[in-house]
């Protein structure tokens, strides 16, 4: 076998039940067909988690995978993919985290760490180059994500990169995060919940090896050119000061800001919670992921009636989901709720969705003061913090809410399904899509459930016209191939999305690092393969999965936007069907949303076609 450049070269397997640790060479075929990161996660979930496995049983696996470009000198090479069968949706699950974890995993020599079984007691997985040990983690159990990270770094060495879960993950809250670098999170689909079910409190990694490069001199020259290009783009200076929070004004101006449990798309107080308020009022330092020239991380110190704390953020998603969506109109208060959620280990997107759902249920009388233990009010910091604590401990109403809005509504009844804003069981992230058909379709068809990162299509709606459905499916599909490719290569996409750094650079660099002569189109083709594989995974795992699972919540087609710039706008069921028909046809899927046998075989997914009987 030829040498694998760009890769660590080894796949690490940990069986927590038996304590067995095994290493095997990373198969070259796997690299060529699935690249790494998200591609490895998708393929390994399919191959290794037996059909019908309960997501919280020892049979589920948490897969941690950097990509072939992670840790290499280029703008934004610090992204690590985590995956597991999702306890939130029952289907394919993954989530991505920045910081410095992915590079360290590569420097330790690994392309994937596959964590199966379940430990009998709290455990820290310590990966120190070739030496891998399972250490008693009892002293960290019960600690907050960030508190535990600081303790572990102190105990094992400051040069370890550490990922942790918080009390929410320990108590199997379905939307628990994996936290890293004091405020970065793999937040979605409950990857932290699965780690908690295995009693893994933390993973600590240290590596001293070099990443082998096919052409080191050329990588050095190309990387310098890539950084110079980033420095020269106008967005380098304009976008960086506010990071993702900078988009808050625009989203309100286009009427797509999640407000009061997605009741409307405009929040009057948005100027108090935007990028400039963050920077001027609470910022401590800009904080970058590995090799990022445009640090979106805004590390802050916030003071509220409840105390003074440090927190990374809030970034835009948290401003949307815990600001507008909870009617919190102060950047200090949002930052405080952000801190509480981060320490407890709760995803601020799903968490924001769940809190807003609970507040609306309270307002509409579905949850009473007695059941809740207090009033649950929009715009009230105390209500928000109270709920997060209850959820993390699974106490009282928190136990119901800890399963997410879909399950909570099913349990609470009384018409509360109407207030459960999700797709496939995953709470929707911070774009109100009623006047953004491409964004609506992006939420409907994202493989993990309603998540913006697969296709941030709202900019396209605004660019080409928001009243038309024409061409929207095509653009959503393009984005669904480009954007997840970053998660596959182990990179951040924001250099491209936010400052307009050209995609061609990545295509040029890839062969210099790996020695594999793929062009951009080859990479996109692999991304399409992965997309069909993750769809197939959910078809395999969820009874009757298909078109019915691709519709948004009724609020999005039964109610028009009531206020703000998008007032009176909305999509009908006919519109949604038109979007889906276009989308399935272009994808080569049948009218139920199932990939055809022909499409699967064309993508080299013969084994999937067979498994699905296509």
């Amino acid at each position: 076998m030829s040498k694998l450049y760009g890769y660590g070269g080894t796949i690490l397997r940990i069986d927590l039940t038996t304590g067995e640790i095994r290493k095997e060479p990373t198969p070259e075929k796997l690299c060529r067909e699935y690249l790494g990161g998200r591609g490895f996660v998708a393929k390994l979930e399919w191959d290794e988690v037996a059909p019908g496995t309960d997501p919280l049983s020892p049979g589920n696996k948490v897969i941690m995978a950097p990509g072939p470009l992670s840790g290499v000198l280029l703008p934004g090479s610090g992204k690590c993919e985590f995956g597991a069968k999702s306890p939130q949706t029952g289907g394919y699950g993954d989530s991505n985290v920045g910081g410095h974890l992915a590079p360290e995993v590569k420097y330790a020599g690994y392309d994937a760490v596959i964590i199966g079984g379940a430990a009998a007691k709290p455990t820290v997985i310590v990966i120190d180059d070739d030496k891998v040990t399972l250490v008693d983690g009892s002293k960290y159990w019960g600690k907050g994500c960030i508190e535990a990270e600081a303790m572990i770094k102190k105990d094992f060495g400051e040069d370890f990169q550490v990922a942790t879960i918080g009390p929410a993950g320990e108590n199997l809250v379905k939307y628990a995060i994996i936290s890293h670098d004091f405020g970065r999170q793999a937040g979605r689909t409950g990857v932290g919940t699965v780690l908690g079910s295995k009693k893994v409190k933390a993973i600590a990694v240290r590596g001293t090896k070099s990443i082998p490069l096919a052409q080191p001199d050329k990588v050095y020259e190309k990387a310098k050119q890539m950084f110079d290009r980033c420095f020269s783009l106008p967005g380098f200076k304009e976008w960086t000061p506010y990071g993702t929070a900078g988009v808050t004004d625009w989203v309100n101006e286009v009427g797509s800001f999640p407000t009061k449990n997605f009741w409307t798309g405009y929040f009057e107080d948005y100027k108090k919670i935007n990028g400039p308020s963050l920077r001027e009022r609470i910022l401590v330092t800009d904080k970058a992921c590995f090799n990022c020239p445009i640090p979106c991380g805004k590390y802050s110190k916030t003071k509220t009636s409840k105390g003074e704390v440090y927190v990374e953020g809030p970034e835009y998603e948290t401003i949307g989901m815990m600001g507008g969506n909870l009617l919190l109109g102060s950047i200090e208060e949002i930052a405080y709720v952000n801190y509480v959620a981060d320490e407890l280990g709760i995803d601020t997107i799903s968490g924001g969705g769940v809190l807003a759902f609970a507040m609306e249920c309270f307002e509409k009388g579905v949850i009473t003061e007695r059941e809740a233990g207090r009033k649950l009010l929009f715009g009230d910091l105390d209500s928000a913090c109270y709920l997060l604590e209850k959820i993390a401990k699974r106490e009282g109403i928190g136990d119901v809410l800890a399963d997410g809005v879909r399950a909570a509504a099913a349990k609470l009844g009384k018409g509360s399904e109407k207030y459960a804003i999700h797709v496939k069981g995953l709470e929707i992230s911070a774009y109100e899509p009623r006047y953004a058909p491409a964004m609506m379709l992006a939420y409907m068809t994202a493989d993990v459930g309603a998540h913006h990162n697969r296709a941030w299509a709202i900019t396209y709606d605004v660019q080409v016209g928001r009243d038309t459905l024409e061409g929207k499916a095509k653009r959503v599909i393009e984005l669904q191939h480009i954007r997840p490719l970053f998660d596959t290569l182990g990179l951040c996409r924001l250099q491209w999305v936010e400052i307009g750094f050209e995609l061609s650079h990545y295509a040029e660099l890839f062969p210099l690092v790996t020695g594999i002569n793929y062009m951009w189109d080859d990479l996109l083709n692999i991304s399409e393969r992965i997309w069909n594989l993750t769809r197939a995974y959910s078809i395999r795992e969820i009874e009757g999965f298909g078109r019915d699972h691709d519709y948004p919540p009724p609020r999005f087609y039964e109610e028009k936007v009531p206020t703000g710039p998008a007032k009176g706008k909305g999509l009908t069921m006919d519109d949604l069907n038109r979007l889906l028909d276009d989308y399935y046809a272009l994808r080569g899927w049948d009218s139920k949303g199932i990939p055809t046998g022909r499409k699967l075989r064309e993508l080299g997914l013969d084994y999937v076609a067979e498994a699905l009987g296509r």
Partner: protein
Amino acid sequence: MRIGVNNDVCSGCRVCEVICSLRQFKENNPKKAAIRVKGHFPAPGKYEIKFCDQCGECFNSCPVGAIKEENGHYRIEPDECTGCLVCVETCPKGVVFTHPDLTAPFKCTLCGDCLRYCPTNALYDLDGEVAKR
């Protein structure tokens, strides 16, 4: 050229570390960098850049004269180095480094790559020969 540092604007991106290793060793490995960035989190939330200001203490301490002075910087000659690591202990800033692959320690040779590619100007040229961005 001399390295100037402004810790307050450092974002902890570690471009400086990786470019240093690629330049000095043709290897992509921050553990082979002659500059390091340390974060102080969760409080006070600051970065601290560990860098060499060519003070010459290592040069003065080397018992076999394996450290050479050249155009305003000091360089360790691996072939002459006996691996005693006195310089590593002597360096007041802790920026003479070792790596398990290497018998001789290594340090900054003032190539200027880190300050040229530091995205935030946390590293800059005190003499102004390399323009700030």
